[in-house]
């Protein structure tokens, strides 16, 4: 498939798209993600009220009461509005931390796979060491060391995502660099940079996209977990994990404070996992039956 000339890109894309639509779960995943992105973008239009405005007289209002569709938290803040604005934060955190993982991990994988030898050995040993850490624990330690904030949570999550991206990239570079078209271009005198970025990289993108989509799902959960532990988003930010954490003192009286933000996390993560699974079926020929 990868040896085909570039001019067939369009039809290849079309072929992928047809296959993609056959996988209903992937389409559903894409639909969920688009929905969340729309909610995030138009949060200020859709949200009934200001997500951080407190109305202490309305504290812990039940859902469907007094104009609070999903109820109010202990400070009388509208949970629906907070969830809508929370979508902005979760999607942004996911995007930034996955970008960190993809850029750093991708570069590491490209260099290790392309040059091989000592560079490969050293880099992959380091990746092995990073993989020996349980990821959530590494995120907690990095985040706590840098200081609790949303920004540092994104860095921590980006870092823990590096090893898997690096491995996936390296594996596809190894397979790709022996291909005839690469050998041909090399014999024409193409430079390393040209070979890596314009010959090999474009053909390694498919598994990378799959891995990045799944990493996005992981990043949303990790960010919410860090915020839940008090290491990520700080009050009064409307972040889903922090919302769950702030509701845990009232679980015996006000179930809605934790239930709805948790469902939002679950849905968003599910969307990315569905899409990632579906993309893998389409883009990874090894998974075809």
């Amino acid at each position, binding site marked *: 498939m990868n040896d085909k000339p570039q001019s067939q890109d369009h039809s290849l894309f079309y072929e992928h798209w047809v296959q993609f639509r056959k996988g209903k*779960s992937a389409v559903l995943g894409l639909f969920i993600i688009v929905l969340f992105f729309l909610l995030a973008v138009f949060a200020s239009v859709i949200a009934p009220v200001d997500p951080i405005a407190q109305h202490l007289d309305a504290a812990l209002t039940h859902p469907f009461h007094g104009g609070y569709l999903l109820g109010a938290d202990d400070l009388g803040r509208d949970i629906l509005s907070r969830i809508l604005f929370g979508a902005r934060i979760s999607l942004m955190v996911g995007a930034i931390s996955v970008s960190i993982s993809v850029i750093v991990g991708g570069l590491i994988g490209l260099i290790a796979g392309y040059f091989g030898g000592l560079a490969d050995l050293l880099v992959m*040993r*380091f990746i*092995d*060491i*990073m993989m*020996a*850490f*349980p*990821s*959530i*624990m*590494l995120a*907690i*330690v*990095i985040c*706590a*060391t*840098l*200081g609790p904030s949303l920004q540092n949570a994104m860095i921590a999550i980006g870092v823990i995502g590096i090893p898997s991206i690096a491995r996936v990239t390296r594996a596809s570079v190894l397979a790709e660099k022996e291909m005839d078209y690469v050998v041909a271009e090399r014999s024409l005198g193409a430079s390393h940079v040209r070979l890596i970025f314009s010959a090999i990289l474009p053909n390694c993108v498919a598994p990378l996209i799959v891995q990045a989509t799944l990493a996005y*799902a992981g990043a949303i*959960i990790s960010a*919410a*977990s860090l915020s*839940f*532990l*008090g290491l990520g988003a700080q009050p009064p930010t409307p972040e889903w*994990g922090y919302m*769950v*954490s702030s*509701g*845990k003192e009232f*679980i*015996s009286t006000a*179930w809605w404070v*934790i*239930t709805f*933000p*948790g469902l939002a*996390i*679950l849905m968003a*993560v*599910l969307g990315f*996992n*569905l899409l990632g*699974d579906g993309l893998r079926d389409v883009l990874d020929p090894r998974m075809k039956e």
Partner: protein
Amino acid sequence: MLRYIAKRFFLVVPTILGVITLVFFLRFLSPGDPARLFLGERATPDAVRVLRQEWGLDQSKTKQYLTYMGKVLRLDLGRSYNTGDPVAKEILARFPATVELSIVATVIASVLGVLAGVVAATRRNTIADFVAMVGSLIGVSMPIFWLGLVLIIVFAVNLNLFPTGGRLDGRMLTDPITSFYTLDGLIYLIKDHDPTYLYSALYHLVLPSLALATVPLAVIARVTRSSMLEIMGQDYIRTARAKGLPERSVIWSHAFRNALLPVITIIGLEFGYNLAGAVLTETIFAWPGIGQWLYSAVLGRDYLAVQGGVAFVSVAFILINLLVDVMYAYVNPRIRY
């Protein structure tokens, strides 16, 4: 086989040293000085200087590193700043709680996950397959800290079936015999014919182990399904069917046994993750294990405790992975090194 084990073990040593090194240098990313952070904002410069000297922070990073590594090799992880106890002792005091929880969670996840995976694969494209696969996707996407709280709301607060947290009813807390409370319960049951201790230990295990089992269960179900599907397409399965074997025997003794290899690997890995990654579950259910302890050490900026704890957990994780690899080679006759 022995040569393979020796080789693998030899390869693990640099990884372990690397892990401890990385944990050590991670601390220098911190913007503040540990001694100043520990003493608080109002500490006098003199007090900070004395403490820095006491902790060896006034020496060069290389010297500090070599001193630390030297101690670690003698299994001395230093003393916790917050309690003054040796870090190694504190870790060993908490580890059994985590091991107990992880074992129970992994057993639940393995039994249910394998069953769901086999059912889904053998009844492909039926309702059962659909339910199992949708369920496992939801499981993989589950925020555990939230699931834990929902379990508490439903089963502890509203239905009052299980306790909200802890390992045992407070009044029963005595010096444990084995540090594994279910084993202690069995001992009391046999010795004194008194089941209350065992009941209490089991009741306390139910909710946290269900929460911890959710993600591994989903992963194991998915791996089992795809492994079974791959095997079910093989020629020898068709042969087995062709010679008239009952479907049950085809599934369990021909297909399942061969599909088990990747499943065993994933179960081992998930057990390792559970041991190390139970921070959230332990925090929510007030489970006095190593995850909860490490989290409070992180918050308390008890950095020797953090260093030692993370190193310990990572080494445990590495060793479990090694064990899984060795087991894999042992079980799979196609791999001989």
